[in-house]
């Protein structure tokens, strides 16, 4: 009985593996066809491009310009600040030291409204 179970199991395992291979090989065949087609069209395009190239070649890449390092630091700082202020709001916390809370969940727009009297 147990021998029978194992024998059946072996057949199932074998046919299962067969089906997996069949499926993936079928996909592989399609992809091979893709590759052939792409190869063929690439050759054709390469030829075509060769003759059309000159006109385009003059278009220069956007001139990156020489940005002084100072400016880059300034920019990065500004962006970082900006991000902190505008994009991290939702991640903020409900409790923290001494005011300045941004929690959107329950605070809503209350902060300005209710505390404003105290802030002055």
């Amino acid at each position, binding site marked *: 009985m147990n021998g029978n179970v194992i024998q059946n199991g072996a057949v199932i395992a074998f046919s299962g593996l067969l089906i997996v291979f069949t499926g993936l090989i079928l996909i592989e065949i399609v992809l091979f066809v893709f590759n052939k087609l792409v190869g063929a069209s690439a050759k054709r395009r390469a030829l075509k491009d060769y003759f059309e190239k000159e006109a385009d070649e003059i278009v220069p890449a956007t001139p990156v310009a020489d940005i002084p390092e100072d400016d880059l630091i300034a920019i990065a700082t500004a962006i970082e600040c900006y991000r902190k202020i505008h994009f991290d709001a939702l991640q903020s*916390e409900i409790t923290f030291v*001494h005011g300045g809370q941004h929690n959107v*969940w329950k605070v809503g727009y209350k902060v300005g409204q209710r505390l404003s009297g105290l802030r002055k």
Partner: protein
Amino acid sequence: MEILGKVISTTGFANLTWGNVLMIVIGGIAIYVAIVKNYEPLLLLPIGFGVIVGNIPTIPGLPIGVYDSVANGFPQNSVFSLFYWGVTSGIFPPLIFLGIGALTDFSSLISNPKSLLLGAAAQVGIFITYIGALLLGFSGKEAASIGIIGGADGPTSIFLSSILAPHLLGPIAIAAYSYMALVPLIQPPIMKLMTTDAERRIRMKPPRKVSKTEKILFPIIVVIISSLIAPGSLSLVGMLMLGNLLKECGVTDRLAKTAGNALLDICTIILSFSVGASTQAIRFVNGANVGFLTSRSLGIFFLGFFSFAVATFGGVLFAKIMNLFLKEKINPLIGSAGVSAVPDSARVSQIVARQYDKDNYLLFHAMGPNVAGVIGSAIAAGVFLAIFR
């Protein structure tokens, strides 16, 4: 001509009652205060809209409202009854707690463990109101659901009453959120009555910085302890702490972000809309009117107010008692924050304190009892669940 008559009879104008009109006005008021006063707008606005929608009279036999489910003999569950199922099955409140956990910082509580006693003391409002509700003739299950209003936690109130007293869900939820919105008006008089001028001026030491390890261990320990003590609190506390662990662990940021945004928002919209839509002015079940406009609702609103007042009272009183034994005194104004209503009641502590000493920063200290109160009322709900199920 008969068909034309039938078509016209399907309009709602004929069936509109004065009760409906009154409820529609109430819904409009909820929307108004949400927008103009900015009172809990994320909840009161959809609730108010739901109240309006729920009081449009529909056609018998056409499944539209939150109660039109197969169990009521309708051939199909209405869409709104499927929304409402998310409330009555108890599935939305824990998901909302998951999101709130992912947005809450417990470091104030961790750095100042004494806060937990204040958070516990404020729950006295729940249990005294429970007795009060029994005295007014509510059944045990109803009284427990009404008492929990004093927990000042919307999801907890909705979770408990959806299981113990679903027929009172509408008024209980609306009372809970209304009083949470009115915390800045309800609490200050009681706080001032209970404290001396000197007490209100007590300054507290700046708290220590809490390490990441502590923040990670905290949710795990809380869920184990509170659910061993009160297994019924597992759904709420478990999800609250899972959300907090996702936030604090540092390796699951994307899960915490989704839990605290998309998931929380979706559940909030559907829950609050369908709770609102469950407040039909008049509704008969087995011949008894279980609608919103009954004397029971008045009782619930009265008891809910009482519950908030007692909770505030209990929190402040306990802080004063603790001061008898402490060397470093605590400012009793933070006791009132133990009712939860996060973060409004903590902010009220701060505002009142600054009326007497404008450089006294209590907000951080008040957040401790504030979040402790959330855990406390979830445990209280777990106790009621265990007793009454």
